[in-house]
């Protein structure tokens, strides 16, 4: 069975400080993993993806994520938060050749000026 757990429903950081959004996955097969961002009243935009190549993945807007198989984790990080990063973030898993994508419950990121 496949599933995704986002460990924090809300994260609040000060502008200029690091961001860490946690995601753990469960998958019977080699997964592909994605982070999407959803700004208020907007659709879902891909931040980055892991597809069995390099375990450290760089995405847009300075975000990175590291795939750690031993910990079944795919945490999203950014060294310095910007006000425009305030949004909802979703971790998503897709199994090898699988057609279904499993969403985490989302983490709401607040950036304090």
């Amino acid at each position: 069975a496949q599933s995704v757990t986002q460990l924090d429903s809300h994260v609040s950081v000060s502008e200029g400080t690091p961001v860490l959004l946690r995601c753990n996955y469960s998958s019977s097969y080699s997964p592909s993993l994605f982070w999407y961002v959803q700004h208020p009243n907007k659709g879902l935009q891909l931040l980055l993806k892991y597809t069995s190549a390099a375990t450290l993945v760089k995405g847009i807007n300075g975000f990175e994520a590291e795939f750690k198989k031993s910990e079944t984790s795919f945490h999203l990080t950014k060294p310095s938060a910007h006000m425009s990063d305030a949004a909802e973030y979703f971790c998503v898993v897709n199994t090898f050749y699988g057609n279904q994508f499993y969403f985490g419950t989302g983490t709401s990121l607040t950036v304090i000026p």
Partner: protein
Amino acid sequence: EPEVTQTPSHQVTQMGQEVILRCVPISNHLYFYWYRQILGQKVEFLVSFYNNEISEKSEIFDDQFSVERPDGSNFTLKIRSTKLEDSAMYFCASRGSGQGYEQFFGPGTRLTVL
């Protein structure tokens, strides 16, 4: 850059009425999806569609729902008799084939059932 489009952006309907939500996926994509997001809740998978048939569906996707690709470009979601609890944002997505191809999402249709 190619994108997924959805119409309308907002649909208001009376309970019991039928609605059709429309999506135009990216033209060379082969897999199509519908998701919904009730206000303040997680994104929920409804259905996936490949090769002109449903490949997977969730428990939410009951007999009230149907999908169709009527003309090779549009991908529609029909709700036959809407209920209050169908009020949500509905997202369409498409992707190419093979592992690691991400889904591209449309901007969503907000459905309000009164």
